[in-house]
């Protein structure tokens, strides 16, 4: 490595990246922050191109252009509903890129790297492999290419432990290997780490995805950082470490919001608890539910419309059901309608609503809901007792009061949105089945709760229709 110039530019790049992240702390400056980060990385690439001694510059530039073109294609084509899949896929690509670079170091007989570089290369292959295969499985589950249900088989934990031991062996072994054995060990590591990633990811169910994606995001950064140790490049180390830290923070936030420890998730104990009270709906619940359903639909929508028309304070609670039925446009229509009548309408966003951190915010921002109206759980919870109407759109577990009252259930202790404290609640969910946790939701049978079951997009358009009639 040449001294001076490279180090100075590296420091400038790291500071620009950090400045960019700092600007992400407010939506006003976030666009600029992201662009500063992008320019910093592009500058770093340009510097390496100009500064390094590259034997085949045409090949490198052609690869850079090809990768950029694919990146543009992904970025332009993706819909906001499918952002989690894209992020999972990109995590995987990052992991694979680090894996390939580390493999090249071990494969190159004239690299002249020391034992620290060799060990780092093996670890980078391990982390990169886990990230790659885990992310591809996660992306497949999110895109419904493979079953979203957790896959658990007997001896899964022992298999994981055996694979971990095999990886540790591969790392230690590299110190004692000659050139040809290095390649064997590197290939060994590729196979083992990918197998581990698959076993890790298949047992994670749909609603655990926010945790999984965050963790894989962190790992893709860690892989890049360790790859930096392998090639002794401080810039890679620093930027990779920042990504690792970010993913770690998000993982912790998601774990807390789901009431699970990271250790539990790593050990593969999925939140669909076996000792969870089964989805048995008691006779009483079934009766009230039927009574509510039996209400003439026309009358019911008229009642909902009257309640909404009179409301001064409204809170909307969106969940993944809103995303699935693509109801965010209708939600915005309803928001505009109530807002124009002078009602105060806000949105309560639970951290794990959706399939990745912040997913609901992006969906609502896309339909132009002002971001001031998107509230975090701790800020909005005190407002529920003063709220006239809560409108739940495709959310279940995040409004389940059992999380406060029912000790022993999987969701006990999970922070929830206190919808049950509002004067009236309207639930626009697909059905009354329990959410992902498998815990029945007693909110549905409260006196002041109106159930409007079915596809949320259709339900909301009927509510808007009825509102137009009522307020004419």
């Amino acid at each position, binding site marked *: 490595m040449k001294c001076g110039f490279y180090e100075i530019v590296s420091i400038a790049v790291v500071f620009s990246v950090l400045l960019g992240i700092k600007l*992400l*702390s407010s*939506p006003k400056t976030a666009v600029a922050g992201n662009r500063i980060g992008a320019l910093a990385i592009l500058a770093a690439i340009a510097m390496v191109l100009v500064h390094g001694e590259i034997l*085949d510059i045409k090949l490198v530039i052609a690869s*850079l252009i090809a990768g950029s073109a694919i990146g543009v294609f992904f*970025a332009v084509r993706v819909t906001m509903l499918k*952002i989690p899949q894209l992020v999972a896929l*990109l995590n995987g690509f*990052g992991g694979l890129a680090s894996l390939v670079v580390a493999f090249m170091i071990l*494969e190159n007989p004239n690299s002249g790297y020391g034992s620290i570089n060799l060990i780092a290369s093996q670890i980078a292959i391990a982390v990169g492999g886990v990230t790659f295969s885990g992310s591809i499985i996660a992306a497949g589950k999110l895109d419904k290419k493979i079953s979203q249900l957790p896959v658990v088989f007997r001896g899964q934990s022992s298999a994981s432990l055996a694979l971990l031991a095999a990886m540790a062996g591969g790392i230690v072994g590299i110190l004692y290997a000659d050139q040809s054995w290095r390649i064997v060990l590197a290939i060994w590591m590729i196979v083992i780490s990918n197998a581990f990633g698959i076993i890790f990811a298949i047992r994670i169910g749909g609603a655990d995805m926010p945790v999984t994606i965050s963790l894989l995001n962190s790992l893709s950064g860690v892989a890049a950082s360790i790859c930096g140790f392998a090639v002794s490049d401080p810039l890679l180390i620093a930027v990779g470490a920042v990504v690792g830290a970010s993913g770690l923070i998000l993982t912790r936030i998601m774990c807390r919001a789901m009431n699970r420890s990271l250790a539990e998730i790593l050990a593969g104990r999925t939140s669909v608890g076996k000792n969870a009270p089964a989805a048995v709906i008691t006779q009483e619940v079934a009766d009230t539910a039927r009574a509510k359903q039996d209400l003439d639909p026309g009358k019911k929508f008229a009642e909902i419309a009257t309640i909404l028309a009179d409301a001064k304070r409204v809170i909307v609670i969106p969940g993944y059901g809103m995303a699935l039925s693509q109801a965010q446009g209708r939600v915005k229509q309803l928001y505009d309608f109530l807002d124009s009548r002078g009602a105060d309408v806000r949105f309560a966003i639970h951290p794990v609503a959706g399939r990745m951190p912040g997913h609901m915010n992006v969906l609502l921002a896309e339909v132009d809901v002002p971001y001031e109206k998107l509230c975090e759980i701790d800020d909005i919870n005190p407002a529920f007792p003063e709220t006239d109407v809560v409108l739940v759109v495709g959310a279940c577990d995040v409004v389940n009061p059992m999380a406060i009252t029912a000790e022993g259930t999987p969701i006990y202790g999970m922070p929830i949105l206190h919808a049950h404290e509002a004067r009236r609640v309207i639930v626009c969910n697909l059905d009354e089945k329990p959410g992902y946790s498998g815990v029945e939701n007693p909110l549905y049978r409260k006196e002041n709760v109106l159930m409007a079951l079915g596809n949320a997009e259709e339900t909301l358009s009927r509510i808007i229709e009825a509102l137009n009639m009522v307020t004419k």
Partner: protein
Amino acid sequence: MNIGILLVIFIAATLVGYKLISDVPSLLHTPLMSGMNALSGVTVLGAIVATAAAVMLSSKILGCIAIVLAMVNVVGGFMVTDRMLRMFKSKG
């Protein structure tokens, strides 16, 4: 470069990153994550350096694969983040 210095850089970057990212509101967590995707594409620098020294055809092919993958991350990540962040509008 000395392994000690590299470790210090790793720890310092983790701590500073942790502090700064803690201040990002949950409102922006999705763009934060896709932005981090883009940053993890920084591996492209390692890929270029490794490819630069490659002599064998197999190494060149591997290098190209690594560069393409990392570049998809960099360009795709930053562009989709930009697209999302521009959607966040204030009232009025």
